């Protein structure tokens, strides 16, 4: 190995691999990690297919999650159903802009950006698109970090449903989009978790070398 800082020797090339569970560096020839007994995989090529499958399912479920109502509210005998978007629109109308912004980010922006971002990411690996790997990876780290915040809407629904139960006077119930929305969160989180990010850096190697050196 050279001492050049721009040197990009890969673990694969020198017969080392890192344990997916405990991050210990071990000889790639051994079958299991010496520290935690997890099976060692140098590159998980099947993870790309798994991730695509999860992502496509999530993208399909995003449609019912946004079109169907997510809560049913009975206020003095009058029944109204709110979708994610109309709920936020109502908040804007009643001048609760900060809460509206939080909910808009957590329930509409984050799931949508997560699906678009992961699609770009997976397309770049599958079809070897010439997109800067550094930007893709920064995007991926943001997706990993912010993705869980979509759970906010489900927590709010569960608190609201539990506390607002006065029959015909005032009553809140969840509606079908809640399940679809929960599944969107679960599937997109899994899609980001299963993907072996090392594949990105392997497959775009030749393209990126020419773009960074010039």
């Amino acid at each position, binding site marked *: 190995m050279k001492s050049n800082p721009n040197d990009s020797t890969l673990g694969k090339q020198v017969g080392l691999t890192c344990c997916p569970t405990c991050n210990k560096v071990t000889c790639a020839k051994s079958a299991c990690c010496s520290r935690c007994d997890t099976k060692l995989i140098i590159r998980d090529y099947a993870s790309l297919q798994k991730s695509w499958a999860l992502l496509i399912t999530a993208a399909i479920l995003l449609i019912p999650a946004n079109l169907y109502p997510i809560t049913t509210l009975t206020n003095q005998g009058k029944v109204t159903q709110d979708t994610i978007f109309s709920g936020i629109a109502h908040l804007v109308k009643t001048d609760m802009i900060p809460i509206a912004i939080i909910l808009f980010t957590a329930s509409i922006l984050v799931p949508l950006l997560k699906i678009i971002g992961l699609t770009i990411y997976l397309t770049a690996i599958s079809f070897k698109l010439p997109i800067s790997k550094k930007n893709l990876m920064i995007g991926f780290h943001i997706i990993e970090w912010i993705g869980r915040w979509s759970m906010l809407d489900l927590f709010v629904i569960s608190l609201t449903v*539990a506390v607002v139960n006065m029959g015909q006077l005032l009553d809140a119930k969840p509606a079908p989009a809640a399940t679809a929305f929960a599944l969107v969160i679960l599937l997109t989180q899994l899609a980001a978790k299963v993907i072996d990010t090392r594949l990105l850096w392997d497959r775009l190697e030749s393209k990126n070398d020419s773009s960074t050196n010039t």
Partner: protein
Amino acid sequence: MASDALDNSVTLCRSCDLVIRKRALPSGVRALCPRCHTQLYDTPYCSINGMLALCITAIIFFFPANTYPVLELEFLGSMRTTTVLEGAIAVYQQGYWVVAVAVMTAAVIAPGILLVSILVQIVIIKYGLQHSLLRSILKQALKLQGLLTQLTMLEIYVISFLVAAFNLADFATVSFSFGTFCFTMLFIMHLFLLREYDIEHMWSFLEK
């Protein structure tokens, strides 16, 4: 090359497989992968006794946080309260079990298991490293740590109190109570506990 790994002078980036020479870091500084900016390692140190104190405090707050009401609502003279668990059960009773399981896992089950798991890890490290059975329990607990941390979403639940309160303030009088205080304290203790927790340091006890 394989011998390099044994003396721990070389590490691999888990996101892009780049070979990186380890350097000593001042405390509080984190090494990032030069190629993909993934966090690589920091000073592998955590105070076991400090963690024990935080962990016990968090467990003490865990019980009132889940048994006392976190949100109270007054509407035309009648009062409704809810705990975190009742919130999940209410959604379950409406038939939305997927949502109920998600709420239960992220707000009650995962944090509970995480705290017990850390407590068990600390006790084993302090008193029971000689026994092979306890060592294998420690190993399993450390393997689960990453998953449990990801499933624990206390910070999001704390924000959801506020959002729910503002949402409902439109119809009725909403107030927080003792449970809200305990839940927020549970969140703060868990935050500091995980800041102190260093998985690499915990693994190193098993290698001795």
